């Protein structure tokens, strides 16, 4: 679904590249999480996948990104809109301000895609239900809390049903129940095979629970790529400014103290379930 070949990008007026020589292939139906410290290039990668780089954010680029076989750099944003959906890190940047209610806001993108009117209401209501906003359809977007606004930004993109869904820190303002519901839904979408999901995230326990794959960015480069548990329990991620989950830290400390069952060399846990299994004596 995604093919990135030797892609580098520097924003106009900056000296150092935000992304440097990125090579990455993401097959259709994969839920791929991008993690890394602030300034690693995660948001730039999201913009590059969705065409905002280079069509909106100008700069110098090398290499190529293909989404569903089309070159992002050579395809107008309007043509990409039906194929790729981007949920911005800051929901305030996403809300159009052109509609009076939450339901109309979600319908806005569908109207612009020329979706038949009869389908718009169904798709918008479904997206609101999936994001826990089912009862707030009549409310003004500006009467929502920060977390509810983030849910609205996500709902707007889910309703568009893009083949590639790119989400930049989509859970930063969500409560844990909302975070779990979103990851569950994204996982279902990806496992259905019809949608490919790329998201950036700081909450590693959710990444480890739901992602098929974790890519670590640091300084604009890919420095690790693999199964979430392998990558996120690795001691090397701490040197990259990524803090392991408390589950990993607790299990590592308990193992170092000789307290844990099983022999040496067991894979450290990242999630609650993995940690309980790692530490439980039967």
């Amino acid at each position, binding site marked *: 679904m995604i093919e990135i070949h030797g892609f580098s990008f520097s924003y106009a007026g900056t000296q150092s590249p935000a992304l440097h020589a990125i090579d990455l292939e993401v097959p259709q139906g994969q839920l791929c999480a991008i993690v*890394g*410290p*602030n*300034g690693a290039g995660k948001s730039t990668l999201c913009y590059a996948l969705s065409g905002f780089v280079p069509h909106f954010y100008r700069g110098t680029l090398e290499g190529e990104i293909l989404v569903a076989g089309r070159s992002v750099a050579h395809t107008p944003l309007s043509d990409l809109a039906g194929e790729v959906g981007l949920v911005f*890190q*800051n929901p*305030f940047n996403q809300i159009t301000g052109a509609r009076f209610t939450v339901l109309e806001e979600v319908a806005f993108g569908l109207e612009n895609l020329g979706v038949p009117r009869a389908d718009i209401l169904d798709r918008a209501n479904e997206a609101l239900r999936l994001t*826990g906003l089912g009862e707030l359809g009549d*409310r*003004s977007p500006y*009467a*929502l*809390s*920060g*977390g*509810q606004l*983030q*849910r609205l930004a996500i709902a707007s993109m889910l309703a568009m049903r893009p083949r590639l869904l790119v989400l930049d*820190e989509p859970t*930063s*303002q*969500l*409560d*844990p*129940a*909302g975070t779990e519901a979103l990851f569950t839904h994204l996982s279902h979408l990806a496992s259905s095979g019809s949608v490919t999901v790329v998201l950036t995230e*700081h909450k590693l*326990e959710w990444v480890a629970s739901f992602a098929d794959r974790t890519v670590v960015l640091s300084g604009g480069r890919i420095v690790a790529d693999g199964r979430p548990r392998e990558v996120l329990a690795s001691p090397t991620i701490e040197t990259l*400014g*990524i*803090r392991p*989950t*408390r*589950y990993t*830290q*607790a299990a590592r*400390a*308990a193992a170092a*103290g000789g*307290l844990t069952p099983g022999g040496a060399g067991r894979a450290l846990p990242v999630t*609650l379930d993995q*940690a*309980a299994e790692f*530490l*439980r*004596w039967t």
Partner: protein
Amino acid sequence: MDVKVKGVTFRYPSGVLALSEVSLTIRAGETVALVGENGAGKTTLARHLNGLLQPESGEVWIGDWDTRQKSVASLSRRVGYVFQNPDDQLFARTVWDEVAFGPRNLGGTPQSVDSDVRSALARCGLHEAADRHPYDLPAAERKFVAIATTLAMQTPVVILDEPTTGLDAEGVRRLGDLVEGLKKEARTVLTITHDLDFGADHFERVVVMSRGRIRGDGPAREILRESTLLEEAHLRPPQLISLALALGLPTSPMTVPEFVADYGQYVARGRSAR
């Protein structure tokens, strides 16, 4: 400085009832994490403390000031508020001017403004960014600029609305250090957060809100173990307490060493039973 919220009810003009007879007393120097589901009313409550919102009924007192009798500008001398989204509060052309805006408007002398700004920038790790435009900085750094603007005001009450949003591990550590510094100065700190690990690390008391009401209030170590209460507010206990609960440990470890000590006792008990 004490903060007292007495029976506050608030309804937005749209008709949404956001707070329903909320009462809360925060003692001077206390650190409190206000937690709850999206839309619980946390930010609405916090905005009553600096006068951005006024109660439909009930009262809010900051020390001996009734917020209904004071302007937002006056209240800014006592309550500093770091917004959830830093872009809501940054407007100057340089970081320095941004941080100096508050002290200047409080009538500080050039020397005191200079001192307050330098101190706030240093505490937030922004001393090298003083001449930069705030919007040339990454979002995470803008968050620290917003915090610096509040610190420079030297207010006895500091409110941090979702401060960990968008911060990486290093950013959360820097933020934690700032909170610890405020504690040493006996400032009253209220944070709104979904990050209960951050709450467990730095806040002594947790208040749980849900649907416009306070559902739980007590020492962090006790409240953060009440998984049913937290679940009703769409929350989960912090990771170490979740793990303790999953293993059947009767304790509420707040740090990794505490967890390892509790777990060691669990292992020893199991060994002696075998």
